[in-house]
């Protein structure tokens, strides 16, 4: 299906190994320097069963980078689209901040950048800006850079270019998060995605996420 020259970036999260520590969440904040209220990755929590036969279950949730992304379908300005490498891109220059995509995403993976800042308690808070999707947008601030646009996990596209895994995968202390080329059957993620334990969130919607979970 994929052209062999192009990778299909994908992520596999082994829920049996995930310890729900939120190291991925904070690594993402540190890497992507997202503003208050915007977390590309969160760890969701739910309880199953009743005491004492119960378990607190956790599920890290980045952007699913769907092959059939509902967010893209509703974008009135084609600011968001699926790139050939599987990464769903948001072009901040085109995004008009209408938030249709936030409503359309069945995973809650998108949030609005309202220009908020940590400057109230962080030195030089707005100086470090990550080149999201490989685009350097200068110093952060209201009415600058990504202010007023919708944002989401980029699979750390800027890190992948350099051969580094996304920050969440690099730091995962549960040894639960893997990244790589799903199009390469020899890759670790392709092999894990083929596991009988593998599933994807809300598979029934036909969104075809590039993020696989192992149950």
């Amino acid at each position, binding site marked *: 299906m994929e*052209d062999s*020259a*192009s990778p299909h970036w994908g992520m596999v999260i082994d829920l049996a*190994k995930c*310890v*729900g*520590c*939120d*190291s991925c*969440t*904070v*690594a993402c904040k540190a890497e992507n320097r997202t503003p*208050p*209220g*915007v977390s590309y990755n969160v*760890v969701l*929590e739910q*309880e199953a*069963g009743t*005491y004492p036969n*119960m378990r*607190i279950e*956790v599920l890290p949730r980045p952007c699913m980078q769907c092959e059939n992304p509902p967010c893209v*379908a509703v974008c009135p300005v*084609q600011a968001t*689209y699926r790139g*050939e490498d599987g990464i769903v*891109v948001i072009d901040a220059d*085109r995004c008009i901040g209408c938030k249709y995509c936030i409503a359309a995403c069945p995973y809650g993976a998108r949030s609005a950048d309202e220009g908020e800042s*940590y400057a*109230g*308690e962080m*030195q*030089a808070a707005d*100086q*470090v800006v990550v*080149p999201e999707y490989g*685009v*350097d947008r200068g*110093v952060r601030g209201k009415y600058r850079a990504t202010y007023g646009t919708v944002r989401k996990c980029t699979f750390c596209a*800027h890190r992948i*270019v*350099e*051969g*580094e895994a996304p*920050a969440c*995968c*690099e*730091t995962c*202390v549960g*040894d639960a998060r*893997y*990244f*790589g*080329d799903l199009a390469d059957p*020899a*890759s*670790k*993620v392709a092999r*894990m995605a083929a596991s009988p334990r593998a599933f994807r969130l809300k598979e029934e919607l036909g969104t075809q996420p590039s993020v696989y979970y192992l149950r």
Partner: protein
Amino acid sequence: MSEHTETTSASREAAASPHGADASARTAFGTPSRRAVVGASAAVALSALAGGAGLGAYMAANDPLTDAPHGRGQASGAYGADDVVLSMCNNCNTYCTIKVRVTDAAEGTDAAEGATALVRKISGNPYSPLNSQPYAPVPYGTAPADALAPDGSMAVKGRAANGGMICLKGQAGIQLVHDALRVTQPLRRVGERGSDEWETVSWDEAVDEIVNGSPSLGTPGVAAWWAYAPKKDVEADVALVEAGEMTKEAFAQKWGDKLIDVEHPDLGPKSNLFCSCGGDRMFLIGDRFTQKCFGSVNNFNHGGVCGMTGVMGNARTHPTTGHKRMYADIDHCECLIIWGTEPMTANKGPTWLAPRLSVARERGMKLIVVDPRQGRSASKADVWLPVVPGHDADLAFAMASWIVQNKRYDEAYLRAPGKKAAAALGEPTWSDATHLVAVDLPNRPVVTAKLLGRTGEGGLADDARFVFAGGELVAADELDGPADLEVDDVVDVKGKPTRVVSVFALLKERLDERTIEEYAAAAGIDVADVVDVAREFTSHGKRACVMSYRGPAMHANGFDAVRAVSYLNFLIGNHDWKGGHIAAAAKFAPYTGRYDLQSVPNAHEGWGIPITRQKTEYEKTSYFKQDGYPAPRPWYPLPGNLSHEIVPTLRAGYVYDHLGALFIHRHSLVDSTPGGDRLADVLCDTDKINLLVSFDVEVGDTSRYADFVLPDRTYLERFSQEPIYPNQQYQLIQFGQPAVRAYEGPRSVEDVYLEIMERLGLPGVGEGAVPKGKKDSGQTASLSSEEDYWLKMAANIAYAGEPVPDADAEELALFERVRARALGDAFDLDAWKAAVDEDEWPKVVYVLNRGGRFGSADPAKDDGYEGDLIKTRYAGLCAFYDPKTASTKNALTGKNFDGMAAAAPVAYADGSAFEAPAERPLAFVNWKARTNGTHRTIASPWLRETGTENFVWMCPADAAARGLANGDAVEVAGPMGSESGHVRVTEGIRPGVVGCNFSFGQTGYRARPLVVDGEVLAPAPDYLEESGVLDGDVPGEQKSGYAGGRGRGFIMNELLPDDPTVQGGGGVCDPVGGGSAQLDLFVEVRKA
């Protein structure tokens, strides 16, 4: 599908052509190389140009979801070895190795407020096994430029090896160093202590007033009262007085200026009125500066409010080396019992332990977790045992009873009485199961050569123990075969027939005091579950282990609980075996070698009675002669670091009625000691603490009461090293070093101590302060600055064992480039080089360039093991029975402590019952938040987003009975008052038990406003409030992405009871272990 493919490649061609990128420009990762980079503005222009034609093509395509690239470029923020300092984390006491990536701060002083560079990102050090489990780290010999560059295999392998794992607290260090609310200049209080009003003073003024007194505050300088007297001189005169050869008046005349109290010479010199409490670097600030330069025994780390009771429980069951911790070799364990600790998100530490636990579970290791609430570790367990708090010993005894009754113990191991017999079995350790106790003699001693009067016979030492073998009394160490396990006999002790019982028989007798059913019922666990777990635990040979920490330990019966839990390991003899109990901690010696950093020429050796009455037998002091039993407060013959005793002791005025100076760094008494802000009466009393100096990065909850707050550097701006890792099998030492300097004003604690010591004329500072080379070489080196100390330590590390190679020219140049760039004028190459010998420098650089020293740590090569044994071993006695404990007494009752663990209920210091009153029936437990490591980490909003406050966990039935729903505001009523919080209704906690983490509720750290130089400084932002999420995050969710303020939640310690049976109050403590019993609390929870 085929159409889809065509469309995809068609759009790629469309994409490639305007950018002019051909196939050859693509890297191995299928993305255009930087050769094809176009600037962001150019890309925008291009997409605008292509707009008309592109839209048509787009609409014609049947895959509207994939588009030609726009809003996408090739900027990566690429970095390399030039941007990295490898260092050590400080955000919990694990002290992980880290990789600190820096980036340039914007030009201009206003832009970055004086920062020399900014920390861009923190990850794990790729050289270190602590950040790379279960994979082998990059070999130590690899050049930094190669180690820190991705190797191109990520797409296939799933990870890149140039960055390691680090937990969320480690990640958040960026916001701690770049905390905009840091104190950057010394502060002197305005008005009374605790007024929350300050004025800025210069470093020179602050140090001068600390040394010579503050005219404006009226606080005395250290120089005004400090005096030292050598122990042997004083003791010689005491002997003269006792012999009637010197009058008391003459003694008082001679020593009155030097001793705290001539009526109690054993209290020691006035130098003991200097007290240092610290959260780190205590081998330097405590052991060297305070103990040997200031000449004070009063230096304490936070152990007393942390693991001290557990430490003593372990040390007294591992007497050969005093081994302090109970850990498992997770990598080979088949059945692991995690008892009252949370290694997946806390302990020491998640980055090292969690991935190995993950892999072990994947391999099929059975995991059993004992914890009244379901933490992250329990949520991964095969069996969760929600024990009743304070009844850990009951559960351990229930299991031990089943193991003993069913003979599931390793009999051959237990019958080996000494090293020789153990060696014959291939056992690296042995137990005292066959050793004999003279049960009817005072202090219930172990039967030794001394007791039997057989010292010297055949070369027997005083402490050579005796056993029965085949009915004959023989020396344990001389046997190379088994001894008798169950003995109850009579031997001749100095002419008197004396009953002796083997330790194993005593254990059986102790276990038989109650039935398994009774023990299980007390622990609140079904007998069937106890039996299942005991059977599983004894079904894996040596490859089973209990690891434990605070849970069983931090009760008033914690010393016994930890000993009882230890017995489970002893019964299967798992010490030093692969998959069993691990005691390894192989270092590269940091304190000696090239420089003797522990010795101080012409030292003032501290001596006397510590303010905490620790490591002191009451009966041997002048206070016993004065007061007898009961003493007004407990004495602690065994433990140390009882920092929680300082304040209640001063309140009682017992032994110490005041301190001349209390210095505190990276430790907050208020945030960690029972009573919390109730400590304020003493902290504010200038008669009890004449001078209170706090080193802090902000004005914290304890610094609030200080006379001076001295701005501390964060760990990312200074050197550091901490020795703590008895749970890992690889040889390593981490080393912290400055990565940036965020603000110009703050100084390292040790640097300020050095200046104060120099001004006081104390030894151990300046020229000749550090002995050099081999002992008695006569050579010395200087200790005038922090670099002087830390780089000498780096030299010791570099030369430990086989020295590291010299850094080559390329590495030396890299070292200088990185630091000149990251530290700016805070880096003085010549001063750094001058700290060590010229020939040592390239080796020092080699160590610094790698963030420490790491032995080979490849799991695939079996590094860290020798066959079936762990390489670095305990190799000593596993003691069910401790004659040392049995010989010491409770100073309140005069009764001996028990040499063997008992499953007794929690009690107050005088032994009276400590039970739940009818009006407060809920047991309250607490734990460390996975989002916070120390009180300092509250300054990170990233962390506060993942945990906004310390919700009070409660089961649905208990909540329903109180009309509470998830998220309700509640009042938690304890014995001393109440706290306000919010309830988290969850199935994940035992009915009848409630609890919360202890990591919230600060009022300092700008949770509240602060007045400095007359200006009101606003509190840190509360993003939840600013965003209109007024009720805060829903417990159990974190969907808002907003952090609360720094003051959300409540200080859990304030709920803890004072012990009503001792003078001066203070929290309830274990009478032997001395640690505060922070898990003994009963409350009621009401809707607020």
